[in-house]
């Protein structure tokens, strides 16, 4: 059995491709900074974009862990909406202290994840369909709790400060995203639990045969996803100061678009925390720039969908080319 060369052909194209998301982020920012030197290239704009998209980034991170393990969690968008509604309702209408409201909402998110996990792991149901169904039910609960209307009212300034303050000019929401994504990156990469998530996603049957507790880990994965979605809901409440029970779908599709875009350069199935966060902000920076140039609100859909299509097509092309040159 001959030796295998350790060195992949290290072409410029390959290096560019591996870092394409960061390049996309940098070039989008550079392009719009040149086009809009006064409005786009400003600290205020950077703070605004990084803060408002932190919720989307957290939600996209919630999708990452199940995807790493080969499972879809479609309920996360609706869990975000329910969390937002309950968090705002408890604080505004029931006068519950924000910390306790947050804890309750986090618990609800974990319970939704537990139900999803048990249905998928123990009952053996298809995750995509199951979480779509539980997500719709969760949406119903959000409408039931709020009567279908947005929740407005006075909130304690300290709670609003969690979502609106800055540390040395950096918006707190961006700091939360950096903390969560760093933790997720480290867990997936440096712990046996994380490595086993990739193993289950890569070959669940092999993982089971080797003794990895696939069912138990699947439940844990969905609980983590539900908790992160709830966290995104709490953060959005704190940024907005209000809640909208029907916001779920608006967040769900961009979150998944970002996760898949984030995994495109690393190869099929290699979902990862950093790529996801960079993808969220690359898309947000582009959409923000286009809108400042006067594009209509729906440019967001074309940009998100177009970028994802381009990324998967490029990924396919790179894979075919790599196979041909081997």
């Amino acid at each position: 059995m001959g030796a295998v060369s350790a060195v992949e052909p290290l072409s410029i194209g390959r290096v560019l491709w591996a870092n394409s998301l960061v390049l996309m982020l940098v070039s989008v920012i550079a392009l719009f900074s040149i086009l809009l030197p006064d409005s786009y290239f400003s600290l205020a704009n950077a703070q605004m974009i990084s803060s408002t998209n932190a919720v989307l980034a957290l939600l996209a991170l919630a999708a990452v862990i199940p995807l790493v393990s080969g499972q879809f969690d479609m309920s996360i968008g609706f869990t975000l909406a329910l969390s937002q509604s309950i968090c705002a309702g408890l604080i505004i209408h029931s006068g519950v202290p924000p910390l306790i409201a947050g804890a309750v909402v986090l618990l609800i998110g974990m319970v939704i994840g537990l139900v999803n996990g048990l249905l998928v792991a123990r009952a053996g149901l298809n995750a995509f369909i199951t979480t779509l169904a539980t997500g719709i039910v969760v949406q119903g609960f959000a409408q039931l709790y709020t009567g279908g209307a947005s929740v407005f009212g006075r909130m304690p300034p300290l709670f609003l400060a969690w979502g609106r303050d800055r540390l040395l000019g950096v918006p707190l929401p961006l700091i939360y995203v950096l903390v969560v994504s760093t933790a997720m990156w480290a867990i997936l990469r440096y712990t046996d639990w994380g490595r086993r998530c990739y193993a289950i996603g890569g070959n669940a049957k092999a993982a089971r045969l080797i003794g990895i507790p696939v069912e138990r880990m699947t439940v844990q994965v969905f609980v983590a996803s539900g908790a992160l979605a709830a966290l995104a809901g709490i953060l959005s409440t704190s940024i907005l100061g209000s809640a909208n029970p029907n916001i779920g779908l608006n967040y769900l599709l961009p979150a998944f678009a970002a996760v898949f875009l984030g995994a495109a350069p690393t190869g099929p199935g290699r979902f990862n925390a950093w790529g996801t966060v960079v993808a969220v902000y690359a898309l947000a920076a582009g959409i923000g720039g286009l809108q400042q140039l006067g594009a209509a609100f729906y440019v967001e859909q074309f940009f998100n969908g177009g970028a994802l299509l381009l990324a998967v097509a490029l990924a396919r092309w790179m894979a075919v080319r790599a196979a041909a040159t081997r």
Partner: protein
Amino acid sequence: MTSAAAAELKQAARTTSAPLVSLRGIGVNYGAVTAVADVDLDLVAGEIVALCGDNGAGKSSLVKVISGAAQPSRGALLIDGEPARFSGPQDALRRGVATIYQELALAPRLAIYQNVFLGAELTRMIGPLRLLDKARMMAEAKAYLARLAVTIDDMRRPVEKLSGGQRQAIAIARALRWNANLVIMDEPTAALGVRETAQVHDLIRRLAQDGRAVLLISHSMPDVAALARRVVIMKHGRKVIDRAVAGLSADDIGHMIASGKDI
């Protein structure tokens, strides 16, 4: 003394020892259907034994018992002379019986070292954190492969980029990592070309030279004739032949499987 001669000597010393795994009067029933009846079998360190038989002869059912995937309806399974009962394939693995399935049970996108240590990763403590010890896993994975005379430089390569023969080597290295005394191989050359088949033959011989017992399930008579020291043939759930392979051709073995009679 050359290393090959040393290996021969080591193998000779180990083959004279007591069986690693013994089956006594094993029977497997599925409802009213008898899949396996009254099978005795001894598997000894350093020996490659081929298990043959037509489809439905009871091979798979017997292998499930040895690999821990099923419980026997009757009879006893002995490990080092002690009665044993496996609760599942992982339990068998912990007790030194590794099964390498036809589809290899590898995670194609994970790196070589990650596959070798799948489900049993090496970790180290950094303060209160238990983190993966990648450097040690890579070094040890390389060492296991070296024992199989396989040289792959980069342990970070994903398994999907390896050839079929190399993938077999990764699966076997995982058995070594679990320190398996008995390695069950299910049709190891089924999907391979001529050159890769020769490579896998080499791997299996090295495994036996390393002091492991190998149970080879194969429909390929050339494999059996080239590799096995002993051939066990099943028919209608019973063991009908258990003899040395020396002097038999691939055709002879094929004839014995078809007729169920020794020649």
